[in-house]
């Protein structure tokens, strides 16, 4: 019993499977394994991302989402396997990220110190040349670029506020602008929706979908909750038990596929327009592994 899923075609602002195949992958992971001590966190994870694709990285707490993103960034060295980035930019063994401009990153749960003497626009500007030594001189073109990025993420209103005094959602936008200003071709976002209310989350998702579509920036966004992403996701990478399955949402979010991934029966249900992945009926006392319903606290 596989309930019909909303596929990505009927979502506004995305191009789903209808997108022209652009050929070369932007990012490809080959059998990536990560082990911390005797705990295997990622097991033979393999998938690829093409330019302009919006990819959701779905998994519950501790599934290894952050670890996977850190592997892609070169911040975490895989125990085995390889990460290939656009045309030969291979990570290699050294684990030092060298392809900084190619990949933008918005880390998980950033709550900036209210005493940080940085305005929102300063944080964005650090995305241009924050890695360079020295103080750096302001230039008109830089200022204009920063303004443009702030506008793109609708952050103009609080551009001159202390960044640590902004709300979680506002900080999120500033960090997205920071990541985008380096003109990355791949943008990694770690649980950007976790601290946002429904409206703010929807705004961020729409913004990212637009970027993917208009600027051909590939987006890999992690979340433990897939429903807000269903309308815009081109592909999903579903993590559970250290293993991953990837594909179009209608290929992956299926009772048989996810049961195989979890190694126990789970069921994909659609309830009032929301997709729920719940423990299978055979083992009714298992907890819900990934509920689509937002927690009502």
């Amino acid at each position: 019993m596989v309930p019909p899923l909303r596929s990505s075609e009927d979502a506004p602002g995305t191009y789903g499977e209808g997108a022209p195949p652009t050929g070369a992958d932007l990012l490809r992971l080959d059998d990536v394994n990560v082990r911390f001590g005797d705990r295997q966190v990622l097991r033979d994870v393999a998938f690829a991302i093409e330019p302009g694709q919006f990819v959701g990285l779905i998994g519950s707490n501790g599934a290894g989402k952050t670890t996977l993103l850190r592997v892609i960034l070169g911040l975490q060295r895989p125990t085995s396997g390889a990460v290939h980035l656009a045309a030969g930019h291979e990570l290699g063994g050294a684990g030092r990220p060298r392809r900084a401009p190619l990949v933008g990153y918005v880390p998980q749960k950033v709550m900036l110190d209210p005493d940080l003497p940085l305005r929102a626009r300063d944080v964005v500007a650090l995305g241009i040349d924050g890695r360079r030594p020295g103080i750096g001189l302001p230039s008109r073109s830089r200022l204009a670029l920063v303004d443009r990025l702030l506008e793109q993420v609708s952050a103009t209103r609080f551009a001159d506020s202390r960044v640590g005094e902004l709300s979680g959602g506002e900080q999120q936008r500033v960090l997205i602008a920071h990541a985008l200003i380096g003109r990355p071709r791949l943008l990694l976002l770690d649980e950007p929706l976790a601290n946002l209310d429904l409206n703010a989350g929807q705004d961020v998702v729409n913004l990212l979908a637009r970027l993917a579509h208009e600027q051909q920036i590939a987006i890999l966004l992690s979340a433990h909750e897939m429903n807000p992403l269903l309308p815009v996701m081109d592909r999903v990478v579903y993590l559970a038990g250290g293993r991953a399955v990837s594909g179009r949402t209608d290929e992956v979010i299926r009772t048989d596929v996810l049961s195989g991934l979890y190694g126990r029966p789970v069921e994909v249900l659609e309830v009032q327009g929301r997709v729920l992945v719940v423990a299978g009926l055979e083992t009714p006392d298992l907890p819900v592994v990934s509920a689509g319903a937002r927690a009502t606290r």
Partner: protein
Amino acid sequence: MTAVWDAIFQAGFFSSDEVQVALVVGGVVAVVSGVVGVFAVLRGQSFAGHALADVGSTGGSGAFLVGAPPMWGFLVFSVAGAALMELIGIQRARGRDLATGIVLGGALGLSALFLYEDTTVHNTTGATMTVLFGSIFAISSSLTPWVVALSAISTAGVIVCYRPLLLASVHPDLAAAAGVPVRQIGAVFLGSLSVAVALSSITIGSILSTALLIGPAATAVRLARRPGLAMLWSALIAVVSVWLGVLLAYDSYTWPPKHQAWPASFFVVAVVFLFYLGADAGVSLRARLRRPAAGQVAGDGPAPAGVSG
């Protein structure tokens, strides 16, 4: 008018060599402490700064034992202490406090021994006071060029690492992902910090040097919204504090009870503290004045949910 002037700048203040050296060395050191202090605050390394000062005091007291200028003792030990912390692993979030604590404990033991020897065997009672609380009026003018050179080195370290340090203070992973050699940058900063702490120790003593390092910086980051401005404010507050401290200490010689000058370090730290309290009050006041305006802004958001007045 001149009476007031004479009461503030008492006879001999500007002509005294000791005062001149104190003003020059104190001013330069204050600038460095203010600038370096901002990143020490942002990186949560005030404990490390304090520990380096204590480690430096081991060198300072050891220098007295062998009859060397205490500045070199402070400097060598503070820098070596920083290197040791780096080796033990100050970079790891948890390792940081541990590494600092381990180095601190070992050094303080030695420091106690040296100060004991200074006082009992060598009969130089002043050593303890000088090492722990500073003696800004007793700095040899021959040290001035060295102080300036070391200040330049320490400041240069911060300037070179300025943007990467800021990026790392937003999020270390963000810096690492951008290709910043986070660990090396941290090591350079720790070097700058150790030099700044040593310089601060010779002016107001190892115990109080943390106050000069952290106090103006903590005040400045509350006042300024931009990092460059925060550093300017911090340096300015530090310089004003040190100079006021020197002036008040000089004047205090004529205060009752007569002919017992108060220590300059006390005044410096007192002024630093007053600046902090003032800024704190100012920031709260500003926030209170702004609140009504903030309520209006919240009103045009998409969520109409209860905006409190």
